[in-house]
Protein backbone atom coordinates (compact mmCIF):
# COMPACT_ATOMS: atom_id res chain seq x y z
CA UNK A 1 0.00 0.00 0.00
CA UNK A 2 2.69 2.49 1.07
CA UNK A 3 4.96 1.34 -1.72
CA UNK A 4 2.21 2.15 -4.18
CA UNK A 5 1.44 5.54 -2.62
CA UNK A 6 5.10 6.49 -2.89
CA UNK A 7 5.00 5.89 -6.62
CA UNK A 8 2.33 8.55 -6.94
CA UNK A 9 4.70 11.24 -5.67
CA UNK A 10 5.36 13.86 -8.34
CA UNK A 11 8.49 16.00 -8.55
CA UNK A 12 8.31 19.42 -6.91
CA UNK A 13 6.22 21.96 -8.75
CA UNK A 14 4.30 19.42 -10.86
CA UNK A 15 0.74 18.32 -10.30
CA UNK A 16 -2.17 16.34 -11.65
CA UNK A 17 -4.97 18.77 -12.37
CA UNK A 18 -8.32 17.10 -11.61
CA UNK A 19 -11.93 17.93 -12.40
CA UNK A 20 -13.38 20.50 -12.17
CA UNK A 21 -10.16 22.56 -12.18
CA UNK A 22 -8.72 20.94 -15.29
CA UNK A 23 -11.99 21.51 -17.14
CA UNK A 24 -12.22 25.10 -16.00
CA UNK A 25 -8.64 25.84 -17.05
CA UNK A 26 -9.29 24.42 -20.52
CA UNK A 27 -12.46 26.51 -20.83
CA UNK A 28 -10.65 29.65 -19.71
CA UNK A 29 -7.85 29.12 -22.26
CA UNK A 30 -10.37 28.55 -25.02
CA UNK A 31 -12.21 31.74 -24.15
CA UNK A 32 -9.02 33.78 -23.97
CA UNK A 33 -7.90 32.54 -27.39
CA UNK A 34 -11.37 33.22 -28.80
CA UNK A 35 -11.25 36.72 -27.39
CA UNK A 36 -7.81 37.39 -28.90
CA UNK A 37 -9.15 35.92 -32.15
CA UNK A 38 -12.03 38.40 -32.22
CA UNK A 39 -9.43 41.15 -32.41
CA UNK A 40 -7.76 39.51 -35.38
CA UNK A 41 -5.05 37.51 -33.58
CA UNK A 42 -4.54 34.12 -35.24
CA UNK A 43 -3.29 31.10 -33.40
CA UNK A 44 0.09 29.45 -33.89
CA UNK A 45 1.44 26.34 -32.18
CA UNK A 46 5.18 26.05 -31.73
CA UNK A 47 6.76 22.83 -30.43
CA UNK A 48 7.41 22.03 -26.78
CA UNK A 49 11.13 21.51 -27.30
CA UNK A 50 13.57 23.16 -29.64
CA UNK A 51 17.25 23.80 -30.14
CA UNK A 52 18.70 25.59 -27.17
CA UNK A 53 20.48 28.18 -29.25
CA UNK A 54 17.31 29.46 -30.89
CA UNK A 55 15.22 29.22 -27.72
CA UNK A 56 17.70 31.21 -25.69
CA UNK A 57 18.58 33.92 -28.17
CA UNK A 58 17.11 37.41 -28.32
CA UNK A 59 14.33 37.95 -25.78
CA UNK A 60 14.92 34.39 -24.50
CA UNK A 61 18.34 35.04 -23.04
CA UNK A 62 16.98 36.16 -19.67
CA UNK A 63 15.39 32.73 -19.23
CA UNK A 64 18.53 30.65 -19.75
CA UNK A 65 18.80 29.58 -16.13
CA UNK A 66 15.12 28.64 -16.00
CA UNK A 67 15.39 26.25 -18.96
CA UNK A 68 15.40 22.45 -18.74
CA UNK A 69 17.90 21.04 -21.19
CA UNK A 70 18.30 17.65 -22.74
CA UNK A 71 20.49 16.12 -25.40
CA UNK A 72 18.80 15.23 -28.67
CA UNK A 73 19.76 11.56 -29.26
CA UNK A 74 19.14 12.13 -32.96
CA UNK A 75 21.13 15.27 -33.78
CA UNK A 76 23.38 15.21 -30.70
CA UNK A 77 22.54 18.86 -30.22
CA UNK A 78 21.37 20.48 -27.01
CA UNK A 79 17.63 21.01 -26.73
CA UNK A 80 15.68 23.21 -24.37
CA UNK A 81 12.13 22.76 -23.09
CA UNK A 82 10.42 26.10 -23.53
CA UNK A 83 10.26 28.17 -20.34
CA UNK A 84 8.19 30.80 -22.17
CA UNK A 85 6.30 30.86 -25.47
CA UNK A 86 6.86 34.53 -26.41
CA UNK A 87 10.36 33.74 -27.62
CA UNK A 88 9.01 31.11 -30.00
CA UNK A 89 6.46 33.52 -31.45
CA UNK A 90 9.26 36.02 -32.05
CA UNK A 91 11.19 33.32 -33.89
CA UNK A 92 8.20 32.36 -36.03
CA UNK A 93 7.46 35.99 -36.89
CA UNK A 94 10.99 36.74 -37.99
CA UNK A 95 11.51 33.50 -39.93
CA UNK A 96 8.61 31.60 -41.45
CA UNK A 97 6.19 34.50 -41.37
CA UNK A 98 8.69 37.23 -42.21
CA UNK A 99 7.05 38.08 -45.52
CA UNK A 100 3.50 38.14 -44.12
CA UNK A 101 2.04 41.65 -44.17
CA UNK A 102 2.66 43.78 -41.07
CA UNK A 103 1.37 44.36 -38.52
CA UNK A 104 1.19 40.62 -37.83
CA UNK A 105 -1.21 39.45 -35.15
CA UNK A 106 -0.53 36.04 -33.56
CA UNK A 107 -1.90 34.25 -30.51
CA UNK A 108 -0.84 31.13 -28.63
CA UNK A 109 -1.53 28.93 -25.63
CA UNK A 110 0.45 26.06 -24.21
CA UNK A 111 2.40 24.56 -21.36
CA UNK A 112 5.79 25.81 -20.26
CA UNK A 113 8.35 24.24 -17.95
CA UNK A 114 10.78 25.99 -15.64
CA UNK A 115 13.74 24.70 -13.67
CA UNK A 116 12.67 26.39 -10.45
CA UNK A 117 9.36 27.49 -9.08
CA UNK A 118 9.20 30.89 -7.44
CA UNK A 119 7.86 31.76 -4.07
CA UNK A 120 4.54 32.88 -5.42
CA UNK A 121 4.51 30.46 -8.32
CA UNK A 122 5.73 27.13 -6.95
CA UNK A 123 4.50 25.46 -10.14
CA UNK A 124 7.29 24.46 -12.49
CA UNK A 125 4.88 23.55 -15.24
CA UNK A 126 2.01 25.88 -16.04
CA UNK A 127 0.01 27.13 -18.99
CA UNK A 128 0.58 30.41 -20.73
CA UNK A 129 -1.81 32.11 -23.14
CA UNK A 130 -1.09 35.31 -24.99
CA UNK A 131 -0.78 37.25 -28.19
CA UNK A 132 1.77 39.36 -30.04
CA UNK A 133 1.38 42.38 -32.30
CA UNK A 134 4.44 42.37 -34.50
CA UNK A 135 5.79 45.07 -36.77
CA UNK A 136 3.79 47.97 -35.40
CA UNK A 137 5.19 50.80 -33.36
CA UNK A 138 3.74 53.66 -31.41
CA UNK A 139 1.08 54.35 -28.90
CA UNK A 140 -1.81 52.94 -30.94
CA UNK A 141 -0.14 49.50 -31.00
CA UNK A 142 0.62 49.53 -27.26
CA UNK A 143 -2.93 50.68 -26.52
CA UNK A 144 -4.42 47.91 -28.66
CA UNK A 145 -2.47 45.23 -26.79
CA UNK A 146 -3.41 46.60 -23.39
CA UNK A 147 -7.08 46.89 -24.31
CA UNK A 148 -7.28 43.42 -25.90
CA UNK A 149 -5.62 41.95 -22.79
CA UNK A 150 -7.97 43.70 -20.36
CA UNK A 151 -11.06 42.76 -22.38
CA UNK A 152 -10.01 39.12 -22.61
CA UNK A 153 -9.47 38.91 -18.85
CA UNK A 154 -12.75 40.62 -18.08
CA UNK A 155 -14.33 38.08 -20.46
CA UNK A 156 -13.23 35.17 -18.26
CA UNK A 157 -14.85 36.71 -15.18
CA UNK A 158 -11.84 38.27 -13.51
CA UNK A 159 -13.10 40.92 -11.11
CA UNK A 160 -11.38 44.06 -9.81
CA UNK A 161 -8.84 44.08 -12.60
CA UNK A 162 -6.01 46.57 -12.31
CA UNK A 163 -3.27 47.36 -14.83
CA UNK A 164 0.08 48.78 -13.77
CA UNK A 165 2.09 50.56 -16.48
CA UNK A 166 5.86 50.69 -16.19
CA UNK A 167 8.53 52.40 -18.28
CA UNK A 168 11.56 50.11 -18.09
CA UNK A 169 13.55 52.38 -20.41
CA UNK A 170 13.10 55.50 -18.31
CA UNK A 171 15.57 54.83 -15.49
CA UNK A 172 18.39 53.58 -17.77
CA UNK A 173 17.82 56.69 -19.91
CA UNK A 174 17.99 58.94 -16.86
CA UNK A 175 21.18 57.26 -15.65
CA UNK A 176 22.73 57.82 -19.09
CA UNK A 177 21.57 61.44 -19.30
CA UNK A 178 22.90 62.18 -15.84
CA UNK A 179 26.14 60.34 -16.52
CA UNK A 180 25.84 58.16 -13.41
CA UNK A 181 28.61 55.58 -12.93
CA UNK A 182 27.73 51.89 -13.27
CA UNK A 183 27.65 51.06 -9.55
CA UNK A 184 25.46 54.04 -8.67
CA UNK A 185 23.23 53.01 -11.54
CA UNK A 186 22.81 49.55 -9.98
CA UNK A 187 22.06 51.02 -6.53
CA UNK A 188 19.42 53.31 -8.01
CA UNK A 189 17.68 50.52 -9.90
CA UNK A 190 17.60 48.17 -6.91
CA UNK A 191 16.29 50.97 -4.71
CA UNK A 192 13.58 51.87 -7.22
CA UNK A 193 12.57 48.23 -7.71
CA UNK A 194 12.17 47.78 -3.96
CA UNK A 195 10.67 51.26 -3.53
CA UNK A 196 13.37 51.80 -0.93
CA UNK A 197 13.65 55.58 -0.68
CA UNK A 198 16.15 55.16 2.17
CA UNK A 199 18.74 53.61 -0.16
CA UNK A 200 18.74 56.78 -2.29
CA UNK A 201 20.20 59.02 0.43
CA UNK A 202 23.74 58.28 -0.74
CA UNK A 203 23.06 60.21 -3.97
CA UNK A 204 23.75 63.91 -4.45
CA UNK A 205 20.95 66.31 -3.61
CA UNK A 206 19.72 66.92 -7.17
CA UNK A 207 19.76 63.28 -8.26
CA UNK A 208 18.20 62.16 -5.02
CA UNK A 209 15.32 64.52 -5.49
CA UNK A 210 14.76 63.31 -9.03
CA UNK A 211 14.72 59.60 -8.16
CA UNK A 212 12.68 60.12 -5.01
CA UNK A 213 10.28 62.03 -7.23
CA UNK A 214 10.05 58.97 -9.48
CA UNK A 215 9.26 56.82 -6.45
CA UNK A 216 6.63 59.24 -5.26
CA UNK A 217 5.07 59.29 -8.72
CA UNK A 218 4.09 55.60 -8.51
CA UNK A 219 0.36 55.35 -8.02
CA UNK A 220 -2.97 56.07 -9.71
CA UNK A 221 -2.33 56.94 -13.36
CA UNK A 222 -3.49 60.55 -13.52
CA UNK A 223 -1.68 61.68 -10.39
CA UNK A 224 1.43 59.78 -11.47
CA UNK A 225 1.43 61.55 -14.81
CA UNK A 226 1.01 64.95 -13.18
CA UNK A 227 3.89 64.23 -10.78
CA UNK A 228 6.10 63.06 -13.64
CA UNK A 229 5.42 66.21 -15.61
CA UNK A 230 6.43 68.34 -12.62
CA UNK A 231 9.77 66.55 -12.20
CA UNK A 232 12.91 68.18 -13.60
CA UNK A 233 13.57 65.35 -16.05
CA UNK A 234 16.45 65.64 -18.52
CA UNK A 235 15.41 66.34 -22.12
CA UNK A 236 16.04 62.74 -23.24
CA UNK A 237 13.35 61.40 -20.91
CA UNK A 238 10.61 63.92 -21.70
CA UNK A 239 9.25 62.22 -24.85
CA UNK A 240 8.73 59.02 -22.81
CA UNK A 241 6.44 60.86 -20.43
CA UNK A 242 4.40 62.30 -23.29
CA UNK A 243 4.19 58.85 -24.87
CA UNK A 244 2.81 57.56 -21.58
CA UNK A 245 0.25 60.36 -21.52
CA UNK A 246 -0.92 59.45 -25.03
CA UNK A 247 -1.17 55.77 -24.11
CA UNK A 248 -3.21 56.53 -20.99
CA UNK A 249 -5.57 58.71 -23.01
CA UNK A 250 -6.04 55.99 -25.64
CA UNK A 251 -6.72 53.27 -23.07
CA UNK A 252 -9.09 55.49 -21.09
CA UNK A 253 -11.08 56.15 -24.21
CA UNK A 254 -11.52 52.44 -24.93
CA UNK A 255 -11.99 51.26 -21.34
CA UNK A 256 -13.06 54.17 -19.12
CA UNK A 257 -13.62 51.98 -16.04
CA UNK A 258 -10.29 50.12 -16.02
CA UNK A 259 -8.15 50.82 -12.93
CA UNK A 260 -4.80 52.12 -14.19
CA UNK A 261 -1.69 52.75 -12.12
CA UNK A 262 1.73 53.94 -13.25
CA UNK A 263 5.08 52.95 -11.78
CA UNK A 264 7.74 54.88 -13.70
CA UNK A 265 10.71 53.60 -11.69
CA UNK A 266 10.17 49.86 -11.81
CA UNK A 267 12.13 47.77 -14.29
CA UNK A 268 12.51 44.40 -12.57
CA UNK A 269 11.46 41.52 -14.80
CA UNK A 270 11.27 43.72 -17.90
CA UNK A 271 14.93 43.36 -18.84
CA UNK A 272 14.31 42.64 -22.51
CA UNK A 273 11.62 45.27 -22.96
CA UNK A 274 12.27 48.35 -25.08
CA UNK A 275 9.16 50.41 -24.41
CA UNK A 276 6.09 50.80 -22.26
CA UNK A 277 5.26 47.62 -20.34
CA UNK A 278 2.37 46.59 -18.17
CA UNK A 279 1.42 44.11 -15.48
CA UNK A 280 -2.09 42.94 -14.71
CA UNK A 281 -3.29 42.34 -11.16
CA UNK A 282 -6.64 41.52 -9.58
CA UNK A 283 -7.52 42.76 -6.14
CA UNK A 284 -7.14 40.09 -3.47
CA UNK A 285 -5.23 37.71 -5.76
CA UNK A 286 -1.59 37.21 -4.88
CA UNK A 287 0.99 37.86 -7.57
CA UNK A 288 0.47 39.08 -11.09
CA UNK A 289 -1.98 37.56 -13.56
CA UNK A 290 -0.03 38.47 -16.64
CA UNK A 291 2.31 40.95 -18.19
CA UNK A 292 3.08 42.52 -21.50
CA UNK A 293 4.97 45.24 -23.26
CA UNK A 294 7.13 46.32 -26.13
CA UNK A 295 10.31 44.55 -27.15
CA UNK A 296 12.49 44.08 -30.17
CA UNK A 297 12.84 40.92 -32.25
CA UNK A 298 16.30 39.84 -33.29
CA UNK A 299 15.49 41.04 -36.77
CA UNK A 300 15.12 44.55 -35.35
CA UNK A 301 11.36 44.56 -35.74
CA UNK A 302 9.32 46.04 -32.92
CA UNK A 303 6.62 44.01 -31.21
CA UNK A 304 4.18 44.39 -28.34
CA UNK A 305 2.71 41.36 -26.64
CA UNK A 306 0.85 40.11 -23.63
CA UNK A 307 0.98 36.83 -21.80
CA UNK A 308 -1.21 35.50 -19.01
CA UNK A 309 -0.16 32.83 -16.53
CA UNK A 310 -2.97 30.36 -16.06
CA UNK A 311 -1.91 29.30 -12.58
CA UNK A 312 -2.35 32.85 -11.26
CA UNK A 313 -5.35 33.53 -13.43
CA UNK A 314 -7.18 30.49 -12.06
CA UNK A 315 -6.97 32.05 -8.58
CA UNK A 316 -8.76 35.11 -9.89
CA UNK A 317 -11.46 33.41 -11.93
CA UNK A 318 -14.82 32.94 -10.24
CA UNK A 319 -15.66 29.28 -10.91
CA UNK A 320 -19.07 28.77 -12.51
CA UNK A 321 -21.47 26.38 -10.78
CA UNK A 322 -20.66 22.82 -11.87
CA UNK A 323 -22.63 21.55 -14.86
CA UNK A 324 -25.62 19.27 -14.15
CA UNK A 325 -24.99 15.60 -14.95
CA UNK A 326 -27.83 13.35 -16.07
CA UNK A 327 -27.92 9.65 -15.16
CA UNK A 328 -29.23 7.36 -17.90
CA UNK A 329 -30.57 4.14 -16.31
CA UNK A 330 -29.50 0.83 -17.81
CA UNK A 331 -31.31 0.11 -21.04
CA UNK A 332 -31.79 3.75 -22.16
CA UNK A 333 -31.67 3.59 -25.96
CA UNK A 334 -28.77 5.12 -27.88
CA UNK A 335 -31.19 7.41 -29.73
CA UNK A 336 -32.72 8.72 -26.51
CA UNK A 337 -29.27 9.26 -24.98
CA UNK A 338 -28.22 11.25 -28.01
CA UNK A 339 -31.35 13.38 -27.70
CA UNK A 340 -30.50 14.29 -24.10
CA UNK A 341 -26.97 15.29 -25.09
CA UNK A 342 -28.31 17.38 -27.95
CA UNK A 343 -30.43 19.21 -25.40
CA UNK A 344 -27.19 20.14 -23.67
CA UNK A 345 -26.95 17.56 -20.89
CA UNK A 346 -23.80 15.79 -19.78
CA UNK A 347 -24.97 12.18 -19.60
CA UNK A 348 -23.63 9.34 -17.49
CA UNK A 349 -24.85 5.98 -18.77
CA UNK A 350 -25.38 2.98 -16.50
CA UNK A 351 -23.31 0.06 -17.75
CA UNK A 352 -25.35 -2.54 -15.92
CA UNK A 353 -28.72 -2.66 -14.24
CA UNK A 354 -28.96 -1.89 -10.56
CA UNK A 355 -31.83 -2.36 -8.12
CA UNK A 356 -31.85 1.31 -7.06
CA UNK A 357 -31.08 3.54 -10.05
CA UNK A 358 -31.41 6.78 -8.05
CA UNK A 359 -28.85 5.62 -5.49
CA UNK A 360 -26.50 4.57 -8.25
CA UNK A 361 -26.93 8.00 -9.90
CA UNK A 362 -26.09 9.75 -6.65
CA UNK A 363 -23.06 7.51 -6.10
CA UNK A 364 -21.70 8.64 -9.47
CA UNK A 365 -22.16 12.33 -8.69
CA UNK A 366 -25.15 12.93 -10.97
CA UNK A 367 -27.56 15.77 -10.28
CA UNK A 368 -30.44 14.43 -12.38
CA UNK A 369 -31.88 11.10 -13.47
CA UNK A 370 -34.07 10.11 -16.42
CA UNK A 371 -37.34 8.79 -15.11
CA UNK A 372 -40.44 8.19 -17.23
CA UNK A 373 -38.90 10.10 -20.10
CA UNK A 374 -38.19 13.20 -18.01
CA UNK A 375 -35.02 14.57 -16.42
CA UNK A 376 -35.69 14.72 -12.69
CA UNK A 377 -33.54 16.45 -10.15
CA UNK A 378 -32.08 14.18 -7.48
CA UNK A 379 -32.70 15.32 -3.93
Amino acid sequence: MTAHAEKTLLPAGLEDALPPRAELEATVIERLIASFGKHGYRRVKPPLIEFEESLLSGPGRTLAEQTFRLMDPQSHRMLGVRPDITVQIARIASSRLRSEPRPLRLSYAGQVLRVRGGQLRPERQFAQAGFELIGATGVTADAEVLVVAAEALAGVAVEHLSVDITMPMLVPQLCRDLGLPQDVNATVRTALDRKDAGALVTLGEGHRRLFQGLLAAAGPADEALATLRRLALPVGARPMVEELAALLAAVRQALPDLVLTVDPGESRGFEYHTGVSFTVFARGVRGELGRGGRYELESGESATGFTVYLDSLMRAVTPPPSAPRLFLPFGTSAAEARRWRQEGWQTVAALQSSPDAAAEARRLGCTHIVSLGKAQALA
Partner: protein
Amino acid sequence: MDRQQTIVFAVPKGRILGQALPLLAAAGIVPEAAFGDEDARQLRFSTNVHGLDLVRVRSFDVVTFVAFGAADLGIAGSDDLLEFESPEVYAPLDLGIGRCRLVVAEPAAMLSEDDPAHWSHIRVATKYPELTRRYFAARGVHAECIKLNGALELAPSLGLCRRIVDLVETGATLKANGLVEVETIAEVSSRLVVNRAALKTRPDEIGRWIKRFAEVVGRGSA
Protein backbone atom coordinates in the same frame (compact mmCIF):
# COMPACT_ATOMS: atom_id res chain seq x y z
CA MET B 1 -14.64 38.19 -0.02
CA ASP B 2 -13.64 39.70 3.30
CA ARG B 3 -9.98 39.66 2.28
CA GLN B 4 -10.81 41.92 -0.66
CA GLN B 5 -12.02 44.69 1.63
CA THR B 6 -10.06 44.69 4.88
CA ILE B 7 -6.46 45.86 4.97
CA VAL B 8 -4.31 43.57 7.10
CA PHE B 9 -1.29 45.11 8.81
CA ALA B 10 1.34 42.71 10.20
CA VAL B 11 3.35 43.87 13.20
CA PRO B 12 6.27 42.01 14.77
CA LYS B 13 6.11 40.55 18.27
CA GLY B 14 8.85 41.22 20.74
CA ARG B 15 11.65 43.77 20.66
CA ILE B 16 10.31 46.01 17.89
CA LEU B 17 6.69 46.07 18.98
CA GLY B 18 7.29 48.52 21.83
CA GLN B 19 8.84 51.00 19.40
CA ALA B 20 6.26 50.37 16.68
CA LEU B 21 3.16 51.03 18.76
CA PRO B 22 3.84 54.78 19.25
CA LEU B 23 4.37 55.08 15.47
CA LEU B 24 1.07 53.32 14.81
CA ALA B 25 -0.64 55.59 17.32
CA ALA B 26 0.86 58.69 15.73
CA ALA B 27 -0.45 57.47 12.37
CA GLY B 28 -3.88 57.16 13.96
CA ILE B 29 -4.01 53.38 14.44
CA VAL B 30 -5.03 52.21 17.90
CA PRO B 31 -5.62 48.47 18.30
CA GLU B 32 -8.40 47.00 20.46
CA ALA B 33 -7.57 46.45 24.14
CA ALA B 34 -6.77 42.72 23.80
CA PHE B 35 -3.75 43.61 21.67
CA GLY B 36 -1.79 44.75 24.73
CA ASP B 37 -2.42 41.48 26.55
CA GLU B 38 0.67 39.31 25.99
CA ASP B 39 -1.19 36.20 27.21
CA ALA B 40 -4.13 36.60 24.84
CA ARG B 41 -4.51 33.75 22.38
CA GLN B 42 -6.03 36.05 19.84
CA LEU B 43 -3.76 36.77 16.86
CA ARG B 44 -5.86 39.12 14.79
CA PHE B 45 -7.10 42.40 16.22
CA SER B 46 -9.44 45.11 15.03
CA THR B 47 -8.47 48.75 15.35
CA ASN B 48 -10.17 52.11 15.68
CA VAL B 49 -9.80 52.41 11.89
CA HIS B 50 -12.68 50.72 10.10
CA GLY B 51 -11.42 48.11 7.62
CA LEU B 52 -7.90 47.86 9.07
CA ASP B 53 -6.88 44.86 11.17
CA LEU B 54 -3.59 44.12 12.91
CA VAL B 55 -1.98 40.70 13.07
CA ARG B 56 0.83 40.02 15.51
CA VAL B 57 3.40 37.56 14.14
CA ARG B 58 7.06 36.72 14.73
CA SER B 59 9.26 39.41 13.27
CA PHE B 60 10.76 37.18 10.60
CA ASP B 61 7.30 36.07 9.49
CA VAL B 62 6.14 39.61 8.73
CA VAL B 63 7.98 39.49 5.40
CA THR B 64 6.45 36.11 4.58
CA PHE B 65 2.92 37.30 5.34
CA VAL B 66 3.40 40.41 3.22
CA ALA B 67 5.18 38.58 0.36
CA PHE B 68 2.25 36.20 -0.06
CA GLY B 69 -0.32 38.94 0.26
CA ALA B 70 -1.71 37.46 3.48
CA ALA B 71 -0.98 40.88 4.94
CA ASP B 72 -1.06 44.07 2.85
CA LEU B 73 1.18 46.19 5.07
CA GLY B 74 3.72 45.39 7.73
CA ILE B 75 6.69 46.45 9.77
CA ALA B 76 9.80 44.40 9.04
CA GLY B 77 13.50 44.64 9.79
CA SER B 78 15.79 45.29 6.85
CA ASP B 79 17.71 42.18 8.00
CA ASP B 80 14.65 40.02 7.38
CA LEU B 81 14.04 41.76 4.07
CA LEU B 82 17.57 40.95 2.94
CA GLU B 83 17.25 37.34 4.05
CA PHE B 84 13.93 36.85 2.31
CA GLU B 85 14.63 38.92 -0.87
CA SER B 86 11.12 38.85 -2.30
CA PRO B 87 10.24 40.82 -5.42
CA GLU B 88 6.66 40.95 -4.11
CA VAL B 89 7.60 43.12 -1.13
CA TYR B 90 8.17 46.86 -1.37
CA ALA B 91 9.93 48.67 1.46
CA PRO B 92 8.99 52.30 0.81
CA LEU B 93 9.81 53.80 4.18
CA ASP B 94 12.59 53.60 6.77
CA LEU B 95 10.78 53.90 10.10
CA GLY B 96 14.00 54.61 11.95
CA ILE B 97 13.20 52.14 14.75
CA GLY B 98 14.87 48.87 15.71
CA ARG B 99 18.27 50.16 14.71
CA CYS B 100 21.18 47.72 14.99
CA ARG B 101 23.95 46.23 12.88
CA LEU B 102 24.40 42.85 11.28
CA VAL B 103 28.01 41.81 11.87
CA VAL B 104 30.47 38.97 11.51
CA ALA B 105 32.02 38.16 14.89
CA GLU B 106 34.63 35.70 16.11
CA PRO B 107 36.54 34.95 19.34
CA ALA B 108 38.89 37.77 20.34
CA ALA B 109 41.73 35.30 20.64
CA MET B 110 41.36 34.30 17.01
CA LEU B 111 41.40 37.79 15.60
CA SER B 112 45.14 38.39 15.82
CA GLU B 113 46.06 35.52 13.52
CA ASP B 114 43.04 35.78 11.21
CA ASP B 115 43.05 37.75 7.97
CA PRO B 116 39.57 37.82 6.32
CA ALA B 117 41.26 38.35 2.94
CA HIS B 118 42.61 34.78 3.14
CA TRP B 119 39.24 33.11 3.53
CA SER B 120 37.97 30.74 0.87
CA HIS B 121 35.63 28.62 2.97
CA ILE B 122 34.22 29.45 6.37
CA ARG B 123 31.63 27.94 8.67
CA VAL B 124 29.21 30.36 10.26
CA ALA B 125 26.37 30.08 12.73
CA THR B 126 23.57 32.51 11.89
CA LYS B 127 19.89 33.25 11.84
CA TYR B 128 20.33 34.50 8.26
CA PRO B 129 21.78 31.68 6.11
CA GLU B 130 20.67 33.12 2.75
CA LEU B 131 21.94 36.62 3.35
CA THR B 132 25.20 35.28 4.81
CA ARG B 133 25.83 32.96 1.89
CA ARG B 134 25.17 35.74 -0.60
CA TYR B 135 27.33 38.25 1.23
CA PHE B 136 30.33 35.95 1.31
CA ALA B 137 29.76 34.56 -2.19
CA ALA B 138 30.03 38.12 -3.54
CA ARG B 139 33.53 38.22 -2.04
CA GLY B 140 34.47 34.81 -3.37
CA VAL B 141 34.11 33.02 -0.04
CA HIS B 142 32.00 29.90 0.36
CA ALA B 143 30.06 30.20 3.61
CA GLU B 144 28.70 27.00 5.08
CA CYS B 145 25.88 28.17 7.32
CA ILE B 146 24.53 26.55 10.44
CA LYS B 147 21.07 27.88 11.09
CA LEU B 148 20.41 28.79 14.71
CA ASN B 149 17.44 30.70 16.07
CA GLY B 150 19.06 32.19 19.14
CA ALA B 151 21.96 32.12 21.60
CA LEU B 152 24.40 32.43 18.71
CA GLU B 153 27.08 33.86 20.97
CA LEU B 154 27.41 30.42 22.55
CA ALA B 155 28.38 28.71 19.31
CA PRO B 156 32.08 29.63 19.19
CA SER B 157 32.83 28.87 22.86
CA LEU B 158 31.18 25.45 22.61
CA GLY B 159 32.98 24.56 19.41
CA LEU B 160 29.95 24.56 17.10
CA CYS B 161 31.81 26.84 14.72
CA ARG B 162 34.23 29.72 15.12
CA ARG B 163 32.35 32.57 13.52
CA ILE B 164 28.84 33.95 13.80
CA VAL B 165 26.74 36.43 11.83
CA ASP B 166 24.39 38.16 14.21
CA LEU B 167 22.59 41.38 15.09
CA VAL B 168 24.40 43.74 17.43
CA GLU B 169 22.85 46.68 19.20
CA THR B 170 25.47 47.75 21.75
CA GLY B 171 28.00 44.95 21.46
CA ALA B 172 27.65 44.07 25.15
CA THR B 173 26.51 40.48 24.52
CA LEU B 174 29.39 39.84 22.13
CA LYS B 175 31.86 41.22 24.62
CA ALA B 176 30.46 39.19 27.49
CA ASN B 177 31.03 36.06 25.42
CA GLY B 178 34.58 36.93 24.39
CA LEU B 179 33.66 37.79 20.79
CA VAL B 180 34.72 40.76 18.65
CA GLU B 181 33.24 42.20 15.47
CA VAL B 182 35.26 41.51 12.35
CA GLU B 183 33.12 43.36 9.84
CA THR B 184 29.69 44.92 9.39
CA ILE B 185 27.44 43.34 6.77
CA ALA B 186 24.58 45.84 6.98
CA GLU B 187 23.07 48.61 9.03
CA VAL B 188 19.63 47.42 10.08
CA SER B 189 16.41 49.29 10.82
CA SER B 190 12.70 48.59 10.55
CA ARG B 191 10.86 49.41 7.36
CA LEU B 192 7.26 49.89 6.44
CA VAL B 193 6.65 47.08 3.94
CA VAL B 194 3.88 46.72 1.40
CA ASN B 195 2.66 43.85 -0.74
CA ARG B 196 3.22 44.62 -4.42
CA ALA B 197 -0.18 43.48 -5.68
CA ALA B 198 -1.94 45.32 -2.83
CA LEU B 199 -0.21 48.59 -3.72
CA LYS B 200 -1.08 48.12 -7.41
CA THR B 201 -4.71 47.15 -6.92
CA ARG B 202 -5.54 49.59 -4.09
CA PRO B 203 -3.16 52.47 -4.84
CA ASP B 204 -5.30 55.10 -3.08
CA GLU B 205 -5.78 53.41 0.27
CA ILE B 206 -2.32 51.86 0.57
CA GLY B 207 -0.68 55.01 -0.77
CA ARG B 208 -2.48 57.04 1.87
CA TRP B 209 -1.06 54.88 4.66
CA ILE B 210 2.48 55.16 3.27
CA LYS B 211 2.11 58.94 3.15
CA ARG B 212 0.76 59.08 6.66
CA PHE B 213 3.65 57.04 8.06
CA ALA B 214 6.13 59.18 6.11
CA GLU B 215 4.68 62.27 7.82
CA VAL B 216 4.95 60.64 11.23
CA VAL B 217 8.57 59.61 10.64
CA GLY B 218 9.38 63.04 9.20
CA ARG B 219 7.97 64.75 12.29
CA GLY B 220 9.97 62.46 14.59
CA SER B 221 13.32 63.20 12.96
CA ALA B 222 12.73 66.95 12.55
